């Protein structure tokens, strides 16, 4: 089974059930940290980073709704317009939808992404978010922190820390998008013959 072209799977780090447990735990942590109750529907929100962060944010939303009966809004954020590798790319990546139907002004936000690596996407996401208003606070949630940071950024909620080597990649797959679920460590070769 190939994850992406030139991917060689080294290990499966989480299966569907592990991912579910991790999300349940993180939902607990969020509710506890922000002391969420029904009144917080106007002062708190989850923001999913395109693409898989959106689905993960929706899972967290569903868990919090089921367990605590609190409806937490979810926004969708695409940071493509704010990326810093623009000058080095010859083809521009597709700009995806940004859809935040609530006012971010004065709201506590949790930014949700699948993998934290260099921190550059997070930086772009923070810039995109603050252009929409001035949130009361922004916290950061990731399923996997794989290390190798290039910017001073850290996550507040981490599913699992997995130190990786250059050339390795983490693939988080969600049912809604990938028809498979779990987290894999893969060896990714840009070019197999050099």
């Amino acid at each position: 089974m190939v994850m992406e072209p030139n991917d060689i799977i080294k290990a499966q780090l989480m299966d569907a059930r592990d991912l579910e447990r991790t999300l349940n735990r993180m939902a607990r942590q969020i509710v506890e940290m922000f002391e969420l109750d029904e009144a917080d529907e106007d002062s708190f929100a989850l923001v999913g980073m395109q693409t898989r962060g959106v689905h993960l944010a929706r899972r967290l939303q569903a868990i919090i709704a089921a367990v605590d009966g609190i409806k937490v809004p979810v926004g969708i954020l695409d940071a493509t317009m704010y990326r810093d590798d623009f000058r080095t790319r010859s083809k521009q990546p597709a700009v995806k939808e940004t859809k935040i139907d609530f006012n971010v002004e004065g709201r506590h936000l949790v930014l949700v992404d699948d993998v934290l690596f260099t921190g550059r996407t997070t930086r772009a996401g923070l810039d995109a978010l603050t252009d929409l208003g001035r949130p009361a606070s922004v916290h950061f949630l990731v399923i996997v922190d794989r290390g190798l940071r290039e910017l001073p950024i850290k996550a507040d909620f981490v599913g699992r820390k997995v130190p990786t080597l250059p050339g390795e990649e983490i693939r988080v797959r969600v049912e809604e998008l990938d028809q498979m679920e779990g987290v894999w460590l893969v060896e990714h070769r840009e070019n197999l013959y050099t």
Partner: protein
Amino acid sequence: MDPKQDNQKETPENGLRHRHLLGLSDYDSDEIELILETAQQFRDVLNRPIRRVPTLRGITVVNLFFEPSTRTRISFELAEKRLSADTVNFTASGSSVSKGESLKDTAQNIEAMKIDMVVLRHVSPGAPHFLTRCVDAVVINAGDGAHEHPTQALLDLLTMSDHFESFKGLNVSIIGDILHSRVARSNIHGLLAMGANVTICGPNPLLPIHLDKLTDKGSVRVTHKLDEALEGADVAMALRIQMERQGRNLFPSTREYHEQFGIQMKHMKHHKDLLVMHPGPVNRGVELASEVVDHERAVILNQVTNGVAVRMAVLYLLSGSRLET
């Protein structure tokens, strides 16, 4: 077996295949779709409190306008500013062109000042193609003679896609001076590529011959009767009667033109779902009756808004290709 791989083929993650935007005649439907989808995202930026993103920071764009233009130039300039690009404006009057400098020399001189992209409006068809052979910068055609005006057609397509689910089988009638119209030509290419049915309508001297040979993507229906053009049409696109492009009188008078080809309130009443478009500037009482211009089914101002979004999308998608040689 690999969903991710299939996914990537459908959504053109790899961007446009073209390095320049010279016309829509050689753009395929998936490229046009990518531009329209990207434009929708950039349009959202225009509705935010901060209507500016840092996407093209450090990119220099020269707007080279050898022909008078208000809305296209302002639209491009706004699009560039919204993307944080550095812009330089050049208009033919009051420049070295009036001293007899050629297009090639002007362009090469400007490129020697280190620029990334050129937006060119020129009276000669093919001027943008010629420019791509003289400079390394990415070239975007902002209208070349009666040849093409691709960003106008793209903004028209975006406006149509706001009102209709699909271009497949959409009936679009283009009415007026087709012969002199680069807008019509680009729209015909774009609409046929997307699978729409195109009808053109106008007085005989304003219709080009050999339209059947214009493109191999489909055929264009031709009629000289406005009623035939409007019957069953989803969109009526009225074109401006371009006084400045007519060396001789090709129709008796603007009043007679309005009688025969102008869209009036009676047409709006008879065709309850007809959407009316116009690339502007409108000659009120000629192509469109004044009340039609202000009608709720006339989306002329939506076209203008979409123009900025479409140009942002084109600038963004082509900006990477400056790195290719």
